[in-house]
């Protein structure tokens, strides 16, 4: 067991700051999810003290305090316990037990979670190449045994032709899933960024399907978002980014393949990790560096450097960065979705996605110029 660090402050100040943060989190959790929400915050609080999987200051994204990488494990525990007990108490058998497709889907998600957990507990246990091969294996196998998950068309000429060929469609969908969870992992660098994007996406899934699994995921993600944004004591970690990324990728593919919503809608919700992933690769290639080498040139790094001088707090600019980006991308899409401004099947969602791309390019250029002139 260890304690949350806060260098430069007395023990008494530290305790009172921790207590105040805990109280604020409990108030928000109670307002949203009542006593059940407060319970999750308390459980997450206790789990955040576990010595396993801790990051030292400044070793992850833009954080500058000691935190736990086991946020994904916390979400996983909440989700598993909730679903298991609901399964035992409810007078009906959930569809996932009856439908093989969902069994395959959740098995792949579980495999991704375990892969991420191994990295959270023992970093560099697996080489990057082995991790990539394992991820390709998991999604390749999933889409091979469940070809119904591969969309036949997404509304983009050229790609639709390729998707029409079964083997190429399978390969493209596998590459997309692996690329997507890597993109989510790469973008997980600010409090509330990926949790905010995933929460908005899960709300959309829940309102489209209305199944218990999505409802519980909305609950777990909302509680994690409150905890992550207010305290900064948790990161999603690899388990969280791989697991949540896999859920979003699989549900997204299945939804598009079944015609429940358009590919444009999914693209607009998960725009940030996808755009940032591609932009970062292009930026590094242009600079003559390895496309997958970590750096601090992401939009969230630049936005944090812009916010930081305006605040005395270390957590506030970090959380503001994450919420600004998730709010301006997935939050915007959720607003359009909730107000019914575009039908879920409409390809016009690609216009929303295009607007988000434009915003990304504009903001990163502005910030780059601003930080070049004011280093």
């Amino acid at each position: 067991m260890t304690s949350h660090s806060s260098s430069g402050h007395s023990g008494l100040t530290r305790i009172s700051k921790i207590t105040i943060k805990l109280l604020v989190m409990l108030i928000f959790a109670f307002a949203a999810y009542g006593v059940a929400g407060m319970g999750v915050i308390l459980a997450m609080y206790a789990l955040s003290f576990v010595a396993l999987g801790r990051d030292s200051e400044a070793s992850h994204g833009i954080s500058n305090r000691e935190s736990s990488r086991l946020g994904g494990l916390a979400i996983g525990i909440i989700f598993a316990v909730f679903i298991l007990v609901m399964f035992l108490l409810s007078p009906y058998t959930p569809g996932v037990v009856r439908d093989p497709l969902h069994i395959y889907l959740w098995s792949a998600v579980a495999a991704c979670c375990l892969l991420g957990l191994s990295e959270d507990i023992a970093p560099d246990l697996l080489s990057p190449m082995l991790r990539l091969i394992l991820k390709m294996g998991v999604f390749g196998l999933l889409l091979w045994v469940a070809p119904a998950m591969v969309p036949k068309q997404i509304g983009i000429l050229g790609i639709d032709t390729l998707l029409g060929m079964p083997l190429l469609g399978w390969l493209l969908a596998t590459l997309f899933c692996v690329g997507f969870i890597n993109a989510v992992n790469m973008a997980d660098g600010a409090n509330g960024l990926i949790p905010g994007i995933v929460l908005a996406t899960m709300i959309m899934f829940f309102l489209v399907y209305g199944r218990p699994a999505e409802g519980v995921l909305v609950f777990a993600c909302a509680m994690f978002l409150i905890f992550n944004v207010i305290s900064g004591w948790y990161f999603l970690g690899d388990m969280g980014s791989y697991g949540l990324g896999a859920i979003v990728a699989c549900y997204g593919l299945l939804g598009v393949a079944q015609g429940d919503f358009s590919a444009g809608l999914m693209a607009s919700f998960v725009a940030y990790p996808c755009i940032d992933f591609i932009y970062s690769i292009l930026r590094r290639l242009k600079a003559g560096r390895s496309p997958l080498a970590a750096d601090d040139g992401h939009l969230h790094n630049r936005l944090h450097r812009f916010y930081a001088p305006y605040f005395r707090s270390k957590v506030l600019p970090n959380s503001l960065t994450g919420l600004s980006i998730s709010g301006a991308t997935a939050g915007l899409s959720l607003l359009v979705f909730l107000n019914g401004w575009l039908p879920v099947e409409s390809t016009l969602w690609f216009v929303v996605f295009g607007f988000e791309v434009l915003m990304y390019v504009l903001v990163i250029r502005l910030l780059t110029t601003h930080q070049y002139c004011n280093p």
Partner: protein
Amino acid sequence: MARLVFIFVLGMTMMLGGVSLSSSLSAQAVEVGHDGTIIDDIMSPKRLAILGVAGSYSASLLISRGKETVIPDGVPDSLNPIDSPAR
């Protein structure tokens, strides 16, 4: 250590209170034949205290969406819409 284990167990117990209430609401809705009394009762003080605003709304949405598709245990499989999206 013991204090943190106590906090964790207390937290999980509080969360399970929410699971228990939402499951019992679902069972009650089946018993009363989905007459709307459970679905429309989003703002009852007990539900708000245990499930909160979002939780109470989610429980009602789940019950409402499950009305057409969820078949309680004991009903033959032939009557269960396996591929229904709302299960």
